[in-house]
């Protein structure tokens, strides 16, 4: 809708060497600097071709107490994914920066071993030599047999694109946290099980020992203790102690604060009964038929079926014992769940970062126009249920996040032990060589005005770029989940703010170190904009606003913390997208609703107060390229009043302008995508398997539609028919041809309801009235047989309801169209070459159309009299004027908007009976026959 991926491949890094390009002949505006790495041979995407893998993948590694760091599995589980990439080596690297304070043992004041429920640590690592960058999330699982009962693991998302990791940090973090939470839940379950078994064993051992002691006592009538007896007594005592310890552990693991799970979006399904049933079956099996129970069943076995074993007094910690596998460490249900989730994550983040970002942006925008989405948008993408799908898009969870924001503010604070964070931070210098170079660098020491809370974590020393000659770059770690959820919940638009791009880019440039362990930044909140960087990217910054900010105060206001940035984004977005709601309210209060417009922005602020804690600030403060576009729009909104932007007759031109600036934006900022090693196939890979329309389908449909527009001069009335709800019948003998055309035209068909795409690609039977009710685009077979005559008869009979596009004779019979909307939508001289681009162009215009329809449908006074005395006629004339002058619709365009508005109304009031059986609306208008 918003982006044009075509452009992506041809954008360039901003400061590409100009000297590499010195052909003077071309005027400035045509000069496209050569890709700076072109001389390396290969193609523009080959910057990171040094990396030994092509596609992103997920790696799970363990720091084994026996063999050290080792890779366990990759997702996708395919040897090809990693290629020649050395997983062992990379595991070593990522496992060596575990900041997690997974301390388990005997704390000073405590008699028993204490389990520490630590948060996962989240780090971004880079290995410029390998060309690999990774989001790494360390976690610990409990294992009774392991040293200190813990086994350190990590899950890593490995990509060749550093920017992708940085950009998607939040999303990655959210998704991986869910997966990790799932894994850990399973592990706790398994651990508790294991403990219970161990307790049984111990109990049994105690009984045996006790008996032995008794026997000895009886045997020994001499009245003094033999060494044997003393030994036994000691043994007994240690078993007793062990029992108490284990009981304590069990208590601890069971008392894990599940509260957290309840509050987060993630609701792991507790498969108690399922497992129970399974177990009973297993039990029966194992007890009756299969006495030698396999290890899997053993894993599941419950207490009754468990035969306690005698435990040797000293359970020797020897290295030859086999450690449990990851699968064994975790309840099998949760393990598979986790794998599913990770697979989902892999799918989700497939593709270029630019693609992901635009996807996120458009989805976020779509979320805000829920009412009109069903018309032209792909509803399936939006309707992912977070409950059902762990790996579901994070954006779709926004709502719940929003509603629960209050709780989330509180809960993480309770759960995250500050100690753990601090220790993780402090562990950096321990692991690295403490060689802080240039700690006085401005970007490092910048005194940033943070919230009180944030300040606690801020440590300039740690933020310093610790560069050692060794090898790992820590690009950033997450401060804590609290900040994340915090900012997330406030953001209505979860776009990674660009300042971060700038920062990370700059950071990236700064640290081209050959060999590099380098902690680029370990910042608590990931979008701090160092001042010098701001200055060095004037193109992306709104200078004016900057100056304005400077006037306000030295520190506080200009440095938006991410929440602020997002808030404002949210505001501007809200104001852009939801002006009509208020139009309705205002209109109701004030008969002359046009004049009351200036009240609007104020009203908005009031509305927002409930959600946003900080009063909205001028948009100008949003200081980077992308926002300039939005603020552009929103300033339109404000200055021109409510509808001016949408209703401006020169709307198109302003829209065009903003489009241009959007393009500029993508030019200036999408360097990361071009710089990244984007294989061209990656850009187009679908991120959402659920998607109704696959990307490929869209491309194809767009391509065919383009062809149709160029080929048929009467494309406009045909498209008008579709947009105005008049069923278009594509009649032809050749099935493939008809289907192709139907596919092409289907991008113009408004949905009549959720999940009902009213397109039928191929019908061979005569039509009746209900077909027109159900289908708005039909491919119909032309037959020469008597049945064909029958069919033609029905076509002529129902001719008033349909438009007929005859593929064979290249004619179109349909009402006249003289509007201006469709020519814009389908210009046969369009310069657009690619199908997907054209598809987006269409989506773009259709979205505009939707907003018009929305305005029309939801403006109170257009449909209802302002007071009792007003006649229906004056309402009608007002409606007409609105359509004509405010929405700038001419001739037949009115009908399109009216039809869409009618669909909106139907959808909104949702009469259940009609939902399944939609009404057929039609006009008595004459049709004309178009020929080529």
């Amino acid at each position, binding site marked *: 809708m918003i982006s044009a991926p075509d452009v992506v491949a041809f954008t360039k890094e901003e400061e590409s060497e100009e000297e590499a390009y010195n052909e003077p002949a071309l005027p400035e505006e045509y000069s496209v600097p050569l890709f700076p790495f072109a001389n390396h041979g290969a193609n523009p995407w080959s910057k990171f071709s040094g990396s030994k893998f092509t596609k992103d993948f997920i790696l799970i590694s363990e720091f084994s107490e026996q063999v050290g760091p080792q890779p366990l599995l990759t997702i996708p589980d395919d040897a090809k994914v990693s290629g020649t990439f050395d997983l062992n080596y990379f595991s070593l690297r990522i496992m060596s920066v575990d900041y997690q304070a997974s301390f388990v043992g005997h704390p000073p004041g405590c008699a028993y071993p204490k389990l520490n429920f630590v948060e996962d640590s989240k780090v971004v690592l880079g290995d410029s030599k390998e060309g690999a960058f990774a989001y790494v999330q360390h976690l610990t699982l409990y294992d009774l047999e392991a040293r200190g009962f813990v086994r350190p693991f990590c899950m890593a998302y490995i990509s060749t694109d550093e920017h992708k990791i940085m950009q998607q940090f939040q999303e990655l973090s959210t998704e991986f946290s869910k997966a990790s939470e799932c894994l850990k839940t399973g592990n706790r379950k398994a651990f508790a099980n294991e403990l219970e078994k161990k307790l049984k064993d111990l109990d049994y051992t105690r009984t045996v020992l006790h008996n032995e002691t008794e026997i000895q006592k009886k045997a020994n009538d001499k009245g003094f203790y033999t060494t044997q007896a003393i030994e036994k007594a000691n043994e007994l005592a240690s078993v007793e102690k062990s029992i108490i310890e284990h009981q304590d552990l069990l208590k601890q693991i069971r008392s894990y604060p599940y509260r957290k799970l309840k509050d987060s979006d993630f609701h792991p399904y507790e498969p108690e009964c399922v497992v129970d049933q399974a177990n009973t079956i297993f039990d029966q099996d194992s007890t009756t038929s299969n006495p030698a129970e396999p290890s899997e069943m053993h894993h599941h076995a419950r207490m009754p079926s468990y035969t306690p074993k005698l435990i040797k007094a000293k359970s020797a910690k020897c290295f030859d014992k086999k450690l449990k596998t990851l699968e064994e460490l975790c309840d099998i249900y949760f393990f598979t769940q986790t794998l599913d989730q990770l697979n989902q994550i892999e799918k989700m983040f497939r593709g270029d970062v630019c693609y992901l970002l635009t996807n996120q942006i458009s989805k976020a925008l779509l979320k805000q126009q829920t009412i009109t989405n069903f018309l032209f948008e792909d509803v399936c993408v939006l309707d992912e249920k977070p409950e059902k799908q762990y790996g579901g898009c994070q954006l779709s969870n926004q709502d719940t996040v929003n509603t629960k924001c209050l709780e989330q503010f509180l809960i993480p604070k309770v759960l995250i032990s500050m100690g753990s964070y601090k220790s993780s931070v402090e562990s950096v210098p321990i692991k690295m060589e403490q060689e802080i170079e240039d700690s006085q660098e401005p970007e490092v020491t910048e005194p940033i005005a943070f919230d009180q809370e944030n300040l606690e974590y801020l440590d300039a020393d740690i933020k310093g770029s610790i560069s050692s000659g060794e090898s790992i770059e820590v690009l950033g770690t997450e401060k804590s989940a609290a900040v994340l959820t915090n900012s997330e919940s406030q953001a209505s638009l979860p776009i990674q703010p660009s300042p971060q791009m700038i920062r990370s880019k700059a950071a990236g440039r700064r640290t081209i170190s050959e060999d590099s362990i380098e902690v680029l930044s370990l910042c608590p909140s990931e979008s701090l904009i160092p001042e010098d960087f701001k200055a060095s990217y004037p193109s992306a910054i709104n200078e004016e606003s900057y100056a304005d900010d400077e006037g306000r105060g030295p520190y506080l206001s200009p440095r938006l913390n991410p929440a602020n940035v997002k808030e404002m984004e949210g505001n501007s977005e809200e104001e852009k997208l939801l002006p009509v709601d208020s139009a309705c309210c205002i209109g109701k209060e004030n008969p002359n609703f046009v004049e009351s417009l200036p009240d609007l922005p104020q009203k908005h602020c009031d509305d927002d107060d409930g959600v946003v804690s900080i009063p909205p600030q001028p948009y100008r403060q949003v200081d980077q390229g992308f926002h300039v576009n939005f603020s552009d729009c929103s300033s339109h909104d404000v200055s021109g009043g409510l509808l001016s932007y949408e209703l401006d007759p020169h709307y198109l031109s302003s829209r065009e302008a903003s489009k241009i600036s959007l393009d500029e934006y993508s030019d200036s900022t999408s360097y990361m995508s071009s710089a990244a090693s984007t294989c061209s196939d990656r850009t187009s890979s679908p991120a959402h398997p659920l998607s109704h329309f696959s990307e490929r389908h869209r491309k194809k449909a767009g391509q065919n539609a383009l062809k149709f527009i160029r080929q048929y001069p009467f494309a406009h009335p045909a498209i008008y028919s579709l947009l105005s709800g008049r069923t278009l019948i594509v009649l032809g003998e050749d099935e493939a041809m008809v289907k192709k055309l139907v596919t092409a035209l289907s991008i113009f068909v408004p949905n009549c309801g959720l999940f009902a795409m009213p397109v039928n690609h191929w019908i061979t039977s005569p039509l009746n009235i209900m077909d027109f009710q159900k289908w708005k685009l039909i491919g119909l077979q032309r037959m020469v047989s008597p049945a064909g005559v029958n069919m033609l008869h029905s076509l002529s009979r129902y001719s*008033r309801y349909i438009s007929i596009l005859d593929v064979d004779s290249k004619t179109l019979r349909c009402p006249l169209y003289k509007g201006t909307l469709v020519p814009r939508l389908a210009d046969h001289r369009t310069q657009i070459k690619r199908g997907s681009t054209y598809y987006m162009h269409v989506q773009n215009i259709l979205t505009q159309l939707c907003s018009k329809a929305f305005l029309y449908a939801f403006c109170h006074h257009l449909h209802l009299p302002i007071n009792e005395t007003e006649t229906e006629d004056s309402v009608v004339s007002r409606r007409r004027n609105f359509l004509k002058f405010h929405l700038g619709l001419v001739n037949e365009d009115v009908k399109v908007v009216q039809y869409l508005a009618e669909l909106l109304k139907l959808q909104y009031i949702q009469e259940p009976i009609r939902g399944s059986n939609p009404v057929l609306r039609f006009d008595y208008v004459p049709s004309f026959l178009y020929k080529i």
Partner: protein
Amino acid sequence: KSSVQSLGEEQIQNPYTELLVLKGHHDIVRFLVKIDDYRFASAGDDGIVFLWNAQTGEKLFELHGHTHKITAITAFPSSDACKEKNYLILTASADRTVIVWECNSGKQVQKVSCFHSTVKCLTVLQRLDVWLSGGSDLCVWNRKLDLLCKTSHLTDADISALVELPKNCVAAAVGKELIIFRLVVSTEGSEGWDVLELKRLVDHQDNILSLVSVNDLTLVTGSHVGELIVWDALDWTNQVCECTSWDPALHIVTQQEIKLSQNQREVSIQHLTSDEECVFAAVGKGIYVYNLQMKRLIACQRTAHDSTVLHIAKLPSRQLISCSEDGSVRIWELREKQQLPAEPVPTGFLTMWGFGRANKQASQTAKKMQESTSSYSLELIGDLIGHSSAVQMFLYFDELGLVTCSADHLIILWKDGERESRLRSLALFQKLEQNNDL
């Protein structure tokens, strides 16, 4: 070539720009009956009765009970004495039963199955709070479904139509005969009724197909061969001759025409309807308007449809709706012509028509003459095309729209698109208000 008047695709006066197809029946739908201002029942050859909401098109109830096709249906409104509105409908079926249904609950109240033959018509006498069933005999029932009285078996034919007349009389069309019955208080018991046969009117030459009571004074019948007879509805006993004699010309002419016309189907009077002034007759493919005061035909559309007109109705706004076997519904307007009518010609339409049959050329001239003589004309102002088979009947629901039923098993609800749009907006803002989104 068809001489049917056709209308272009532009129909400004046609208000029906939205339709809703109601599916449910799986055989020909023959009957529609209005229950109250917003509900109606449909019945047909599948023996199922459906209750529908005419505003939303919602299916309210599906009434199963009959095993054969339904032959008659009528609504039985509650008597005025009743406090609570209790709407009943009666259905008669070829399985020789009559079932009484309760509309609010969709329950079967009672089933009567003591008939010797299929009940072909049902009539409710609201004043007396009784209902009549007509088959091979005429039975009188009260609300509780007690058989009050019945006539003796009619040997020659079954009762095909019943109409209520003043003075507790009913007219029953039995084959070619019109029989007048009167209900009188039984001599034996105070609560019983007796039904007496008063008169047999044998003026029709062929089966009486349609029967309509214009007002308390007039009754009109139409027969299969196109005879239209206007009867005095009051004085059966002493003014019979007057009844038949006041319109001799028409009658006799009609008789003459029978011989001329080749195809009786073309002239059969399928349906009659009336307002205070005029009788509207669906004759073959055409529609004729007969003025009672002027005692002459004032307007006609000889081939209003491609096929037999099955049902016509007069709307308050001087409009007429007709439906036909050709699957279309047409809306006509009765327009007064400015030119002064020539001398009234008492010999009505049927004369011309006979000529038309005989000679095509003559038909043309006759038509011209017709037009010059009638001061009104029927103008086609809209047609509704949706059904793929014969439209059996329709119901006019005032502003709620028009319901049509057809042999293609469908019922279509035709609605005024403008009005629906307005209503939806209203609903939208109500919902917004409810959700506090406004």
